């Protein structure tokens, strides 16, 4: 059962220095209850994609083509009112830097109540009770008192729990977690990820986990999509991706990830850097960094091969 499908989505930013083609031909789908990881270097378009799905792109962003369907509804053409009713209720998002992602001068309980009042049709009193309940559900001790606290009175981990409570208040079907553990210390990271996993399982909520940490994605995701310079270069079930990566970039990316049994000195950096996304780009945006590049790479549009039913790779010369 497909919950969300992104079809051939292209998005560009108009800037003073030219048009930045931040996403091109992005195609992805997500089933109910599934956890999909989106990994890639910073600047690869992971966050841009998630903002586009949520419909909260920067004002300078222009959708150049494609569709985003959520339970059959095309989010790119739906009226604004329908989208507002969807956001926060059916689909929700948590961000990196939770301490600044919450309104600094509003008690956290109130911020959860705002969402409940908007979507859940509760009275103020009911919303207050529900907000405290949500704080308890994300395992915040003494939720009654914490509901009255301000973000600056809480630690980063606590703030991320509040963010999760806020996102899950209306029991959404999709949660997008954009680098949810960046900036938190390691033990808090694990606790936060456990919490997201548990809550997702309880309510069969689909999760998109956006991270540059391949190890984290491997641990938490059913499937993983690898992004590079605005392209999705490979999508596969987690185990397949790690045992048999087919895109040269994916293999390189895995080689840069620290793992047991490999000395840090043996980790290889990926040569080159992300291409400038302004102006003319070759069909394969990885070509300039790729050791397997040959004439086939520049000829014709970028192919999308289903090397196995569930394993897609965008490469003219896959491994």
């Amino acid at each position, binding site marked *: 059962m497909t919950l969300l499908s992104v079809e051939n989505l292209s998005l560009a930013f108009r800037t003073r220095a030219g048009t930045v083609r931040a996403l091109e031909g992005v195609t992805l789908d997500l089933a109910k209850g599934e956890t999909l990881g989106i990994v890639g270097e910073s600047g690869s378009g992971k966050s841009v994609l998630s903002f586009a799905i949520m419909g909260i792109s920067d004002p300078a962003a222009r959708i150049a083509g494609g569709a985003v369907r959520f339970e059959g509804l095309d989010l790119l053409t739906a009226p604004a009112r329908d989208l507002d009713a969807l*956001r926060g209720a059916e689909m*929700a998002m948590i961000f990196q830097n939770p301490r600044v*992602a919450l309104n600094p*001068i509003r008690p956290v309980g109130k911020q959860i109540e*705002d969402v409940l009042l908007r979507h859940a049709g509760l009275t103020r009193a009911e919303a207050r009770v529900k907000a405290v309940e949500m704080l308890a559900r994300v395992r915040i001790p003494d939720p009654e008192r914490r509901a009255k606290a301000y973000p*600056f009175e809480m630690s980063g981990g606590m703030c991320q729990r509040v963010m999760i409570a806020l996102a899950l208040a209306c029991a959404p079907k999709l949660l997008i977690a954009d680098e949810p553990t960046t900036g938190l210390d390691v033990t808090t990271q694990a606790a936060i990820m456990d919490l997201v996993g548990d809550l997702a399982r309880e309510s069969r909520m689909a999760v998109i986990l956006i991270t540059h940490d391949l190890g984290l994605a491997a641990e938490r995701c059913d499937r993983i999509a690898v992004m590079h310079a605005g392209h999705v270069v490979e999508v596969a079930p987690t185990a397949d991706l790690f045992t048999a990566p087919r895109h040269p970039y994916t293999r390189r990316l895995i080689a840069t990830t620290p793992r047991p049994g490999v000395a840090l000195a043996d980790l290889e950096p990926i040569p080159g850097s992300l291409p400038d996304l302004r102006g003319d780009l070759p069909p394969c945006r990885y070509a300039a960094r790729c050791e397997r590049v040959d004439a086939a790479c520049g000829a014709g549009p970028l192919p999308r091969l289903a090397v196995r039913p569930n394993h897609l790779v965008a490469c003219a010369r896959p491994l």
Partner: protein
Amino acid sequence: MPRTLRLILRRLLSALPSVAAVVVVTFVLTRALPGDPAAYFAGPAATPQAVEEVRKRLGLDRSLPEQFLSYLGELARGEMGTSLTTGQPVRDDILARLPASLELTLAGLLLAVTVAIPLGVAAATRPGSWIDHSARVVSTAGVSLPVFFTGLLLVYVFYYLLGWAPAPMGRLDLFATTPPTVTGFLLIDSLLAGEGATFRAAAAQLALPALTLGLFSVAPLARMTRASMLGVLSSDFVRTARASGLSRSTVLVTYALRNALLPVVTTLGMVFSFLLGANVLVEKVFSWPGIGSYAIEALVASDYAPVQGFILTMAVMYVGLNLLVDVLYGIIDPRVRIEA
């Protein structure tokens, strides 16, 4: 709210050095009077004996610290000397004229705030639109406007050309009855007395000077609102609010505007400084019977006691307004309130 109370008390204490500084400076300005104050106060025809007598009476024969102490004593009793032009104690003159100045300043400020904040918000939410461009022109042009000149332009257009405004001659025209004084604010007093005609007359007189003052302070406020709103709108927590599907008005007001107002409140202090200064000029243009025009009359007549009383009053008022700004800031921003 005991926390707010504690905050107010702490701010009151921290305002004390400012008040002390103001008192010292006013004292120094008194002593720096050109020439011999005793000779001056005794009048041009006075004999040397008379000057000496005045000197004793004024305490000018004593040492500076002694003089300062007696100056403090007088201030504590509310004494600010006697005006040579009106023959009245300066304190009474100022108290009688203060409501006129306050009513004008507050009306101007209210006008400025009600225009500037929506303008700044509109400009920030539609960057690059005509409203953004006009807001930018207004805010650069606004700070360049000599307030006495805008006042005159408004008089020419609305009084001479259009005939919509009454003559720029004080707070109330001669035919209106003055309401019994309760607050000293004509608008409020006439309402309290239930005199609709007086209210309308007072409002008509107040309109142009308040507009002049308002125009003058719209610029810095709108500029600040726009800049701070732009910053807040691109902040992470507004993105969270939008991702939560909150209504546009909730996002804009509860989330963005309340945060954006913090730096605006801080600029209010500077705006007050300009506003109180501009008030003097506007009072002169509109023959407004406030403490500003009182001080100008005294200045021109070289009557210094009223001038000093005026400066002291203005400075104390300014310190008070800044105090109010601080407390307001504390009420909006929990980070300040809770640290208190």
